[in-house]
C-alpha cells in the first residue's frame, strides 16, 4: 500500500529509514533483502523507474540456527509465493477505492517550485509533494543530512505545499 500511494518516494524512505544493515533476520517482518525484492517486483507494474542505488547495499538475511531458522525459511518462502498475487489484489482494491497515485507532471512541477525556493501553489496530493521533496533532497545530496541548514527549509516548503493544497481543496469545494 505504501508503494502504491507514495511510489518512488516509498522506496527512498525505505532505504533511508531502514538503512541496509548486517542482514540479521528480524522476526517481525520478512527478511530485508526479500522486502527489497518485493518492492522491485512492485515497481515493474506499474513501471516505476528506480534509482538502482536504492537496492545496492542490502545483504541476504542470516537465519538463526536450529528450528527457528528452518521455520523462518519456510515462512519467507510462503510469503514470497504469495507476494505477486497480493500485490495484484492490493492494486486492484486501491484502484477501485479511488486511491490516487502520484501524477509525474505534478511531481515535476512541485520539484521545479522547490528548486526556486517556493512551495507548490496549484494543488498537489500528499504523495506528489513527498515524492517531489525526496527527488529534490536526492538531487542535492546534502539535503539528506538533517544538520544541513537547507534541510529544514525543504521541510517547510513541503509542509506549506500540503497546507496550500488543503486550503485550495476547501476553497474550491465550498465555493
Amino acid at each position, binding site marked *: 500500500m505504501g508503494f502504491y500511494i507514495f511510489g518512488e518516494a516509498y522506496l527512498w524512505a525505505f532505504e533511508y529509514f531502514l538503512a541496509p544493515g548486517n542482514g540479521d533476520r528480524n522476526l517481525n517482518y520478512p527478511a530485508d533483502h526479500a522486502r527489497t525484492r518485493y518492492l522491485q517486483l512492485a515497481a515493474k507494474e506499474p513501471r516505476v523507474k528506480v534509482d538502482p542505488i536504492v537496492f545496492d547495499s542490502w545483504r541476504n538475511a542470516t537465519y538463526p540456527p536450529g528450528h527457528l531458522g528452518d521455520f523462518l525459511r519456510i515462512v519467507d518462502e510462503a510469503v514470497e509465493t504469495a507476494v505477486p498475487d497480493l500485490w495484484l489484489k492490493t492494486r486492484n482494491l486501491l484502484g477501485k477505492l479511488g486511491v490516487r497515485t502520484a501524477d509525474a507532471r505534478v511531481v515535476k512541477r512541485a520539484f521545479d517550485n522547490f528548486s526556486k*525556493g*517556493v512551495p*507548490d*501553489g496549484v494543488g498537489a496530493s500528499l504523495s506528489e509533494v513527498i515524492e517531489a521533496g525526496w527527488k529534490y533532497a536526492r538531487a542535492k545530496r546534502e539535503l539528506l543530512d538533517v544538520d544541513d541548514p*537547507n534541510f529544514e527549509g525543504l521541510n*517547510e516548503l513541503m509542509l*506549506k505545499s500540503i497546507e496550500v493544497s488543503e486550503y485550495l481543496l476547501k476553497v474550491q469545494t465550498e465555493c
Partner: protein
Amino acid sequence: MLNADEIIAALKIPRGRGDPMLTVVPAPELDSLASRGGASIDLRLGRWFRSFKQTAVESFSLVGPFPGQPATRPSRTRQHFVPFGTKFVLHPGRFVLGATLEWLRLSSRLTGHVTGKSSLGRHGLIIETAAGIHPGFSGCLTLELANVGEVPLEIYPGMQICQIFFHRTKNASALAPGSLSGSRKPILRDPVADAIFRKLRAA
C-alpha cells in the same frame, strides 16, 4: 510603487527569462486585483500563532547579553495551531505573533512593505505597521498582532489580515540561487546588539 497592473506583471513568469519578480503562494485573485485597481495585495492570516506566557521575569534586554553579565530571559512562548474554520480570540491588551497564509518570494529587484487593514484597525486590531520586506525575501511574513480595543477580538485563519505594497529596487544584483530559507510559522529571534552599540556600552 507598483500599481495593480505592474503587480500582475511581476507575478507572471517572464517569457524565457527564468523566475518571476514576485511569487505569492497561494496566488492572489488577479481579476479582483485588476478590477480594484489598487496598489497592494491583500494577505490572509495563516494557521500558526505564538503567544507569550505570563512571566515573573523582571525584564528582558533587547540588545542581547553583555559580556560578564548573565543573559536576561525572554517571556516563554506557546505555539498554537488553529485549523481553518476555527477562531483564535485575542483579548484586550494581549499580543500574539501570527503569520501570513501566503508564502512570498521577492526577487532582488523588488521590495515591499506591509500594513494592517484599516477596517480591522478601527476595531482595535493592530498589525505590524509599515514593516519592510527586503529584496530576496522568501517565506511567510511574521505578523505582530495586538488588541488595543475594549473587547476580545475573534480572528480566523484564512481571513484577510493585512496588505502588502511593492517597490522596485534600482541596480539590484541577482540573488544567490539554491538557498531554502523560508518559514511557514511566526519567527521569534533573540535580538542582538550591533558593533557600534557594544562600543557605546563599553565606553
